[in-house]
């Protein structure tokens, strides 16, 4: 991505990052308070969803031998 960007854009981006570093830190400090909710929600939901492995819909593979 860096190689594709014109130098002026990179310069602008760098300048913006330096200029707004305090605001970025403030945003980081505020947003990180929701990180635990995101992580817990994702892990718990996935753990529950993974229990759905028992979907033996067509039963072709799992039919008893000889039937």
């Amino acid at each position, binding site marked *: 991505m860096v190689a594709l960007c014109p130098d002026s854009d990179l310069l602008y981006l760098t300048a913006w990052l330096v200029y707004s570093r305090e605001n970025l830190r403030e945003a980081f400090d505020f947003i990180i308070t929701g990180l635990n909710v995101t992580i817990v929600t994702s892990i718990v*939901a996935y753990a529950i969803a993974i229990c*759905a492995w028992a979907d033996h819909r067509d039963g072709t593979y799992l039919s008893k031998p000889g039937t």
Partner: protein
Amino acid sequence: LNNIATFYVEFIRGVPMLVLIFFIALVGVPTVIEWLNALGFTALSTKDVPNEVRAVIALSVTYGAFLAEIFRAGIQSITRGQMEAARSLGMSYGQAMRYVILPQAIRNVLPALGNDFVAMVKDSSLVSLLAVGDITYKTKLYSGTSFRFREGYTILALFYLLMTVILSRFMSMIERRMSNE
């Protein structure tokens, strides 16, 4: 049971994720609570179920359908002869599944499971619309109150990028370890 499972999988896969989250959280959960109350199992009010719990239910019900398909494909990728061989050795159906089929099937489906987990972490941003205080919701609050949208959403994107990169690396590590066994 097959028909119920088929309906569940097809319904979930055919409806957009955002609609499903609203539907499950705002229609499904209250309906189930009403049924449970009517049957006398509980005496809950709809307000007793917090939005975080509704979000977890919505995400797990939605992704359960996708994971069911992944597991089905994984189990069916193991040839039928494996089951027949296990049964001919005197194993019960449960033993054959536990000791022969599933260890091979899980190894096959591991990459797909990892991809789905990464997808679900990204889709978890949708639960912010239920006012669940995740990072997307916090970003909306921050940006809305300070009018610093650029900073807020840049940080948010970096958070999600960081989480997905870490998860991808972790899944690659597990895959490598399982392929070496």
